[in-house]
């Protein structure tokens, strides 16, 4: 069967947050959309296609979760617009599949009734049937179908159970329009829906009379405890920082050996000349210096993936609400801000779940100050140099923790000031969050998500970073100087001249022209800094990559100003770290902020503000430190 077959119909998946829509979407389409165990993982419409057993090709839309068709937040509005055909370039769906958590029908069926009232053909997917049965619910899907007047398919999307039956139910002709008996003679539609749902649950989803103590209750007894809850929270994050420094060294060793072998092989097979210099100093030195950090970045994504998948993320938001309130934000801002530790782009997009428009704008504004994974390579280069140590120690993990804390504390301080200046919301919003049951992580999706992240990281290393590395190598090699002295060659090169132009701007921060150039190149992507430094400081390949990075550190430690003073004093290194904590050096983030805030002024204002803060903070650290005699 050809994949180019015409789409017969478009179906939309709608349901309360955390009902399992994305899991069902992935099960239907075989795609790999991000699945989490907290509300608001899907904030925009995703689409895919699949074939029914009857050979028809259907297009399926995965809509953001919503509690009702009265949209309260931007992500809910997207779902409502998709149903009404108000989304640009997206026709009204031919059929709606309401995904409901079978153990929560009292709540989830309210939305299903509202969807039936829209006049669209409808089908109910009764998801997580296994959990409902374990909780002692006596479910009667046939009775439900009879009362609602629509097909009902019991299923467990995470294990694929019922997916085939759902595909079979999507046959043509599509289910006829259901009637809405609950609305006849009703003066209050909401009350009519409520009493209909209660009656329906009495008939077809009876609960056991006694509430059972589940293992979620037992875990929450510790995880949400006023004392032990914070202890767990702190222990988890310290473990993360320890893992980034210590555990990641094992796979990093494999990458190092591979790169060293390639470097040696190139040296033996190629004659000395510009091409060999380009491949070894430019390509291998530049790209290799960044690829090295892949295991650490993946560890960070794995950790965040585990927190999302198990359901702990919502508990963290609950714990953090009090702390976030001091910054004028709510616990709901925690999820986007925490995601920004991995990458600010999904973090900024996740702000769509925040009800208050002003709180959302403030969260978008400060999200890039949560140190993202692209800053890690820079921190990991500088921190061991600062402490005069080899890589991997508790002291380094603590300094790294401090760097993250600095970015986070600054983000909270700015959020508090900005939230105060924006004034109160026209409609007061309060914290309310569903805490999903703990679940076993969906390893398959986490694995695929990590593979995607690794793919996109390597693709960036192979395109943007490779291109910039070659450009930097060319700029620092040409025009050629007649002598053999490397520093004279660099001073004569185009890069040396650019460095001279930049130096007056960065000198007050303690950086020379070469460091300034590396900082300038990293405005395209922060991790380019390491490649640039390796090329600009002319580091030769050593036997393994760790030794190469050690050589780069030796070069940096030995680098001096023209008057003989050391260039990378502890003060200059702290100034450099502080600059990277604050500077918004990520053009894709600027574009996403402009889209999400609906204002280029806001995005460019953020870029200008963060760049200015980075410069001023580094200036104060360096000049203040010098005045104090450091």
């Amino acid at each position, binding site marked *: 069967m050809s994949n180019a077959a015409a789409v017969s119909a478009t179906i939309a998946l709608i349901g309360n947050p955390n009902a399992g829509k994305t899991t069902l979407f992935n099960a239907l389409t075989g795609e790999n959309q991000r699945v989490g165990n907290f509300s608001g993982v899907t904030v925009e419409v995703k689409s895919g296609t699949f074939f029914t057993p009857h050979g028809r090709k259907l297009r399926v839309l995965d809509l953001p979760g919503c509690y009702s068709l009265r949209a309260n937040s931007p992500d809910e509005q997207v779902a409502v617009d998709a149903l009404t055909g108000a989304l640009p370039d997206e026709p009204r769906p031919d059929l709606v599949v309401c995904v409901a958590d079978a153990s929560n029908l009292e*709540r989830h069926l309210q939305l299903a009734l509202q969807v039936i009232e829209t006049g669209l053909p409808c089908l109910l997917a009764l998801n997580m049937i296994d959990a409902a049965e374990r909780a002692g619910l006596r479910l009667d899907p046939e009775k439900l179908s009879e009362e609602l007047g629509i097909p009902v398919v019991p299923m467990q999307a995470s294990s694929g159970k019922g997916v085939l039956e759902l595909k079979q139910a999507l046959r043509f002709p599509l289910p006829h329009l259901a009637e809405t008996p609950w609305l006849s003679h009703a003066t209050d539609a909401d009350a009519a829906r409520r009493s209909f749902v209660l009656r329906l649950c009495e008939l077809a989803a009876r609960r056991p009379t006694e509430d059972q103590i589940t293992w979620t209750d037992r875990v929450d007894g510790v995880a949400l405890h006023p004392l032990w809850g914070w202890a767990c929270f702190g222990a988890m994050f310290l473990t993360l920082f320890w893992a980034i420094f210590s555990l990641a060294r094992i796979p990093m060793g494999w990458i190092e050996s591979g790169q060293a072998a390639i470097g040696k092989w190139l040296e033996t097979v190629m004659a000395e000349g510009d091409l060999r210099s380009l491949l070894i100093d430019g390509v291998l030195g530049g790209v290799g210096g960044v690829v090295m950090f892949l295991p650490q970045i993946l560890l960070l994504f794995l950790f965040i993936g585990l927190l999302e998948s198990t359901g702990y993320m919502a508990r963290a938001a609950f714990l953090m609400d009090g702390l976030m309130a001091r910054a004028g934000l709510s616990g709901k801002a925690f999820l986007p801000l925490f995601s920004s530790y991995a990458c600010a782009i999904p973090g900024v997009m996740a702000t769509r779940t925040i009800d208050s428009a002003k709180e959302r704008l403030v969260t978008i504004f400060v999200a890039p100050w949560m140190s993202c994974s692209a800053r890690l390579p820079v921190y990991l280069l500088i921190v061991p140099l600062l402490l005069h140590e080899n890589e991997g120690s508790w002291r380094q993990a603590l300094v790294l923790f401090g760097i993250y804390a600095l970015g986070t504390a600054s983000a909270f301080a700015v959020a508090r000031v900005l939230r105060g200046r924006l004034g109160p919301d026209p409609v007061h919003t309060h*914290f309310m969050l569903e*805490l999903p049951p703990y679940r076993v992580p969906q390893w398959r999706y986490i694995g695929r998500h990590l593979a995607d992240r690794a793919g996109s990281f390597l693709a960036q290393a192979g395109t943007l970073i490779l291109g910039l590395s070659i450009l930097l190598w060319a700029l620092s090699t040409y025009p050629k100087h007649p002598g053999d002295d490397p520093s004279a060659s660099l001073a004569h090169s185009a890069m040396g001249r650019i460095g001279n132009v930049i130096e007056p701007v960065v000198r007050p921060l303690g950086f020379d022209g070469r460091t300034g150039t590396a900082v300038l190149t990293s405005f395209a992507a922060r991790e380019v800094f390491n490649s640039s430094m390796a090329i600009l400081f002319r580091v030769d390949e050593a036997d393994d990559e760790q030794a190469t990075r050690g050589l780069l550190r030796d070069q940096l430690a030995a680098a001096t100003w023209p008057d003989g003073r050391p260039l990378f004093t502890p003060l200059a290194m702290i100034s450099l770290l502080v600059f990277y904590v604050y500077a918004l050096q990520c053009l894709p983030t600027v574009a996403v902020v402009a889209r999400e805030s609906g204002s280029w002024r806001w995005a460019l204002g953020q870029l200008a503000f963060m760049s200015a803060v980075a410069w001023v903070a580094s200036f104060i650290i360096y000049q203040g430190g010098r005045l104090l005699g450091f």
Partner: protein
Amino acid sequence: MKLAGATDLEIDSALTLNQAGVGCDLRIEGVTGPGCERLRAMGFCEELRVRKLSSGRNLLCSLCGTRVALSRELADQVLVKMAG
């Protein structure tokens, strides 16, 4: 002057979710206040069973088996009675 009806008196005698004791099994009697639309959308509707699990700045409750965290201000808008 409008006289209070029997239902009004019944609601008056109800507690708010905030006032109810931790660990109590409750039944929702009414949802009133500026946040009632959001509360109803989340599932806080009359007749449903709710168990209060903790109190504090945000309180935790179990609504039809689902754990929901909500602020004290919102909990003040949920009127409950002890479940029979």
